[in-house]
């Protein structure tokens, strides 16, 4: 074996090239740093899985609050079927996995210096950043609906005080009152939950205030699991619940807060209790970091969930634009695992493998009546597409026993995902 001077020079060149690149950081003698912003199903999962994949990675999880309030099952809270306490979870087990916690709002991202600035003034440098900020309400999306309006006509689409406000309004309403919900045409978090909420509110009315009515004003003509929902509504809530679709004039163009009125192109609907499901967009930090596009959501590569707009930043969960995959807790959890493995590979200088992702959504139409659908996704055409023939949904003619079992499975699903993310 010969060792010419030329090859020695090449070795030196290669070494200096490594030093010029910020990555992989392992070469610099410390673990690579990953900052995860957002402590929900996506963010908390990603933080824990990063540590699991490679314990040397220095992971910091940034969350606005020290307590997480879960959206799945919050419709039960609205309908008085569940305590809010059952929705609250802490980050103790996340910290025990070696994740550093920062309870502060992320305010800005310096993509050149690769650093996150927090509301408390702290700066967090990163080698890779994972954004999982969830949704923000698009306060410009529906005429007449702003933050003040939400105190009168709650959205309850981010679990917390809004959830309890809607519950209190339902409790305070007299028997014979009218509840009106509106549903937008645009992308929302957990779209099936709109119809689950309508079902559980109808259940509340049927059992507690039987002379009352619920109206859904919908900007769409169809939705996931529509036949299952409509069959159940006909059977369980024939007088309580009415769905007005787009082609029946259901598109709400503005709201009038002082009278709790929904204005459509053809009519005005006054409500005693008004629940507006407003247009939504990716959480504020996504806009601040420049990873959201004109749609308000964040386009990502389907293999690593790296932003198509800003390199080094990955976006997962509700904020990400993922093609066929819905904005749901289980989807967020699945994306987080794929993203964590991909980020660990990229930090090692490797290449992420092509993933398959699963999502399952359970919905309740009554406390003992569950329905579900499951889907499998793979990368395709620069986004995630359905794997044909995989997945499925509850049969439209399933017997009551199956519905009862599915309600139990839904509770099992929630326990399992909570245990994995926070337990």
């Amino acid at each position: 074996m010969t060792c010419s001077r030329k090859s020695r020079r090449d070795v030196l060149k290669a070494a200096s090239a490594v030093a010029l690149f910020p990555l992989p950081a392992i070469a610099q003698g410390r673990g690579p740093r990953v900052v995860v912003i957002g402590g929900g199903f996506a963010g908390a999962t990603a933080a824990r899985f990063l540590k699991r994949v490679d314990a040397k990675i220095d992971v910091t999880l940034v969350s606005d609050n020290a307590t997480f309030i879960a959206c799945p099952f919050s419709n039960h809270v609205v309908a008085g079927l569940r305590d809010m306490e059952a929705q609250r979870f802490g980050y103790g087990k996340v910290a025990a996995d070696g994740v550093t916690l920062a309870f502060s709002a992320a305010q800005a991202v310096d993509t050149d210096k690769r650093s996150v600035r927090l509301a408390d003034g702290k700066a967090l440098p990163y080698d890779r950043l994972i954004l999982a900020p969830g949704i923000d309400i698009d306060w410009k999306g529906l005429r007449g609906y702003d933050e003040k309006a939400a105190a009168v006509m709650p959205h309850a689409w981010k679990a917390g005080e809004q959830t309890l406000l809607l519950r209190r309004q339902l409790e305070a309403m007299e028997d014979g009152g009218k509840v009106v919900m509106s549903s937008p045409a645009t992308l929302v978090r957990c779209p099936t939950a709109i119809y689950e909420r309508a079902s559980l509110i109808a259940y509340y009315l049927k059992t507690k205030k039987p002379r009352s009515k619920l109206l859904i004003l919908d900007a769409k003509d169809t939705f996931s699991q529509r036949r299952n929902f409509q069959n159940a509504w006909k059977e369980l809530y024939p007088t309580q619940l009415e769905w007005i679709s787009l082609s029946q004039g259901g598109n709400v163009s503005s709201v009038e807060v002082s009278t709790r009125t929904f204005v459509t192109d053809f009519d005005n609907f006054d409500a005693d209790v008004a629940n507006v499901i407003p247009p939504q967009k990716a959480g504020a930090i996504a806009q601040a970091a420049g990873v959201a596009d004109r749609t308000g959501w964040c386009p990502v590569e389907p293999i690593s969930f790296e932003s198509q707009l800003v390199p080094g930043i990955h976006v997962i969960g509700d904020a990400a634009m993922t093609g066929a995959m819905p904005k749901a807790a289980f989807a967020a959890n699945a994306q987080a695992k794929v993203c964590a493995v991909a980020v660990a590979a990229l930090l090692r200088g490797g290449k992420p493998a092509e993933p398959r992702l699963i999502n399952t959504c359970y919905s309740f139409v009554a406390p003992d009546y569950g329905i579900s659908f499951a889907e499998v996704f793979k990368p395709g055409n620069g986004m995630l597409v359905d794997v044909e023939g995989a997945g499925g949904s509850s049969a439209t003619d399933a017997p009551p026993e199956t519905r009862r079992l599915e309600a139990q499975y839904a509770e099992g699903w929630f326990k399992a995902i909570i245990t994995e993310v926070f337990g």
Partner: protein
Amino acid sequence: MTARALINVPRKAKRGDVIEIKTLISHVMESGFRTGTNGKTIPRDIITSFACTYNGEEIFATQFYPAVAANPFVTFYTIATDNGTLAFTWIGDNGFEVTQEAKIVVE
């Protein structure tokens, strides 16, 4: 086939006011270009024309073609001239015809 049309005409207007009129009719608008599961072309079933008369005089008319989506929503403006009746007529394939009326009071 019974189709439900939604019509929004102001109940009252001042003479000379520009008023907005909105209409929406439920209809599949099958383009005639799609193939069914049996391999055969699904026959065209669309609304082909829509017209509005104000006290018998035509004030708005339009034609529809296969690219128009289901449940056509049409909105237009006119001038409130007199008390009376606005009549809306949709005509389409397979003998489809629906006429609905709305009254307006002009002061």
